[in-house]
């Protein structure tokens, strides 16, 4: 019989390798999906225990401002009010985004519209280096520079939301900047040319045409930055003061979901209410990260429709 015909009717070594390779790569990707599912499952099962096992009211959890799971109130119910941390987390997140956005957008405009050359040679590497600095280093600088400065200028201890805002501002600046750069670069050249040809100045072109066209991308960048700020743990924990109190101003000690988590998990007993309540905070953190994700997708879809 024809050997070539014979060979073609048998499974070749390559076919076996292909099958094996396909399976290996499938296993790798499946593992990632399983990990994500497991994270949700484990954190949710712990975090929900506060409400199902310890019968804490969800509404109480979200709106009461006394965080003392070990202490019972007049009705004998443990005081698990997460509002101080929720306010703290949202506070530092929004404030840092508010401060970072003008800088990030300004830097991005500088890099794409004003001086691409200097942008590429200086600002780009600067931004990349800022991304690379570990968060504990930011925390350390916050602790040893920003907190004392706030203390000197405003009085008080220096710890608080203001210090957290400053630290997070620097940390999310590169994220927002580089995503804004991408958004600005994606604006077609002829938009600019049309506006300039109509006699618009460079700034008019930027503010009326380029920024408007790039808006969805810029918003995405800002939300990414906020997601990062919301989830940042150690740098914030080092400068915020870690007092689970509803913040009355920006310069008194406060706390965030992440800061209470990092300082608390190690000091509570697994399965106790104190511990479960902390896992509820972790679950909240997880859900917020999911919410930021959805928001980013929604902005992306909106942007595409235009």
């Amino acid at each position, binding site marked *: 019989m*024809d050997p*070539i*015909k014979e*060979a*073609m*009717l*048998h*499974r*070749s*070594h*390559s*076919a076996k390798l*292909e099958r094996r390779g396909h399976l290996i790569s499938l296993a790798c990707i499946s593992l990632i999906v399983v990990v994500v599912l497991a994270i949700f499952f484990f954190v949710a099962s712990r975090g929900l225990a506060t409400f199902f096992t310890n019968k804490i009211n969800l509404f109480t959890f979200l709106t009461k401002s006394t965080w003392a799971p070990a202490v019972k109130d007049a009705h004998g119910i443990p005081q698990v009010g997460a509002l101080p941390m929720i306010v703290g987390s949202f506070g530092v997140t929004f404030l840092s985004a508010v401060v970072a956005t003008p800088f990030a957008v300004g830097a991005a405009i500088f890099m794409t519209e004003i001086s691409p050359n200097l942008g590429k040679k200086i600002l780009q590497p600067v931004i990349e280096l800022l991304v690379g600095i570990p968060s504990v280093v930011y925390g350390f600088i916050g602790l040893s520079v920003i907190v004392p400065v706030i203390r000197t200028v405003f009085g008080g201890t220096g710890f608080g939301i203001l210090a957290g805002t400053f630290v997070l501002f620097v940390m999310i600046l590169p994220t927002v900047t580089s995503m804004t750069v991408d958004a600005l670069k994606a604006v077609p050249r002829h938009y600019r040319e049309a506006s300039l040809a109509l006699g618009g100045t460079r700034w008019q072109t930027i503010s009326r045409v380029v920024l408007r066209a790039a808006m969805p991308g810029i918003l995405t960048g800002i939300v990414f930055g906020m997601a990062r700020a919301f989830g940042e743990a150690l740098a914030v924990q080092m400068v915020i003061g870690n007092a689970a109190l509803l913040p009355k101003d920006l310069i008194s000690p406060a706390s965030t979901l992440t800061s209470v988590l990092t300082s608390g998990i190690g000091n509570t007993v697994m399965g106790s209410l104190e511990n479960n309540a902390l896992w509820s905070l972790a679950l909240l953190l997880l859900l917020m990260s999911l919410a930021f994700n959805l928001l980013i997708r929604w902005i992306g879809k909106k942007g595409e429709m235009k």
Partner: protein
Amino acid sequence: MQNYSLDDTYIKTLDPQTHELAVTTKDLRVFYGDNEAVHGVSLPFERYKITALIGASGSGKSTFLRSLNRMNDNIEGSRVTGEIMYRGVDINSQAVDVYEMRKHIGMVFQRPNPFAKSIYDNITFAPRRFGEKRKEVLDELVETSLKQAALWDQVKDNLYQSGLSLSGGQQQRLCIARAIAMKPDVLLMDEPASALDPISTSTVEDTLMALKEHFTIIIVTHNMQQAARISDYTAFFYSGQAIEFDETRKIFTRPKIKATDDYVSGHFG
């Protein structure tokens, strides 16, 4: 644009008694999703001859060629029905090992695509993967395939430089050398000279003429002079169909179908 009837076809039959056939297709159809790109093409390809597939862009000739060694398998949403008979087996069936089959039905693409490896490795990469480790055999293989591809004299002193450092025409001949190093039966060529300058084109054509001693060649080309110069048979494709298939000199002198006549004489469309 003028429309030609798709019923008006002439496919010359080649008698297997007098012509040794390397590949024959029967009612070959290619679908991309719901779109049928090739409508039931049945053609014979004689051994040790060059068959040219000509026709306008989008006529389905390249798609047809790519389905002959099942390269369309890799395109998501594509589906090929019908028979491709090769050595008494329908290679379009799942029973056939597609990788083994492609060792015998090789392909050269429109754009030269050498690996980012040395010239030597470009040629020996696949044979080594298939188990040939003996250095003297590999050296010999490099020399003979480069000679057959008319590239040996230009690169014999630089076998270890990157294949990407060659000129476009040389890269394409390297790709031909790489394909023939597998000692295939059939060589499919998808406009192998379209990206080349006239001088490289004529070198590649000379190469093909020499190669048909050892290989059956099926070549898609846009260039009618090229088809006339090098091929023994020509198939004219129009709108996903093979409209006319005959000996090349007949196609270019006395085509039987009006569409073919208009196309080869430049009055098409």
